[in-house]
């Protein structure tokens, strides 16, 4: 199974893991989950839609990253998965 990882567990960053899958699943773990999990999920879904990716497993471990950081880490993880 192909997978890609990008980012870190440092403050203001996010560690994002993506894996090949036959369905779409997004899991968010965040230090600000109660306040921002919907926003983080939206960034992830929007980024996947921009890339035209329907089926993939995304695990986002967020340490207070801003939207552009989450998007950047997801894009890098996807690029790494695709090789």
């Amino acid at each position: 199974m192909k997978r890609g990882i990008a980012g870190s567990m440092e403050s203001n960053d996010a560690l994002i893991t993506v894996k090949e899958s036959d369905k779409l699943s997004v899991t968010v773990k965040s230090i600000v989950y109660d306040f921002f999990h919907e926003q983080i999920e939206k960034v992830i879904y929007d980024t996947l839609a921009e890339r035209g990716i329907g089926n993939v497993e995304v695990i986002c471990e967020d340490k207070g990253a801003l939207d552009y950081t989450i998007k950047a880490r997801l894009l890098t993880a996807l690029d790494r998965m695709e090789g």
Partner: protein
Amino acid sequence: MPGNNPAMLQNSDVFDCDAVIYDLEDAVSVTEKDAARTLVAQFLSAMKKQPPMEIVVRINGLDTEYWEKDLEAVVSDKIDSIMLPKAQVRYLKQLDEALSEIERKKGMKKHVAVLPIIELAASVMEIDDIVKAPRVNGVLLGAEDLSSDLEVARTKKGNEILYPRMKLAYACAAYKIDSIDTPFTDTNDNEGLADDCAFAANLGFTSKAAIHPNQVPVINSVFVPTAKNIEWALRVEEATRINAEKGLGVFSLDGKMVDKPVMERARKILVKARKYNLIQEDKQ
């Protein structure tokens, strides 16, 4: 600013500096080049308003496999300059062509400038041509890599880089572009930094690179004109205007001759002072 550090990127517009350099080169490990490139690109893309300082991105050298991807990712109307490490004339020509192609493809309004870094002995020997290369509006001296290329120890006194410093300051002054002195690497020695800034300023450098936010106020204190200099320059400006009306190109002020070079020195002080709003502050 290391390009792969989100915490640093998001606070990069709070410093009182002329420009911020987002680094994709030495501050980024080989395994994270892709991540840094994408992070800086997304950071710039998300930037809603232009910050007060210039935006510079240091790409990887043209002798690497990364530079073309770096340019594709970061070149946009949001940036002012591309910083080119290990600059040489042949690379500057290649970079100009690549930038022109990207600007055309992206339909950009801006013409991105280039800041070459002089950090090879070969680059020092080409300075006269580097300052004349397309898009170049300033040059940075990179003494750490240069010392390494020369296989000499880098010292605080900096005797080992006196020749490139002088050559760079003269070449930039001749073509009226920014000369940016090498960073002072001891971030705990602000006294040494102030001495190093004063030395560089006396050689003719117009500015100095910082590697830590704490260095910015020290550098500014040396490179911006002092209140005394501004006051003198304003008096020269006023006296020049009055004497010009009388048809006098040379005159005396405080018992000293004021001719064209003195007027030019005063003019340059005032250009810098106005750039930093120092004259307005003095009047308040």
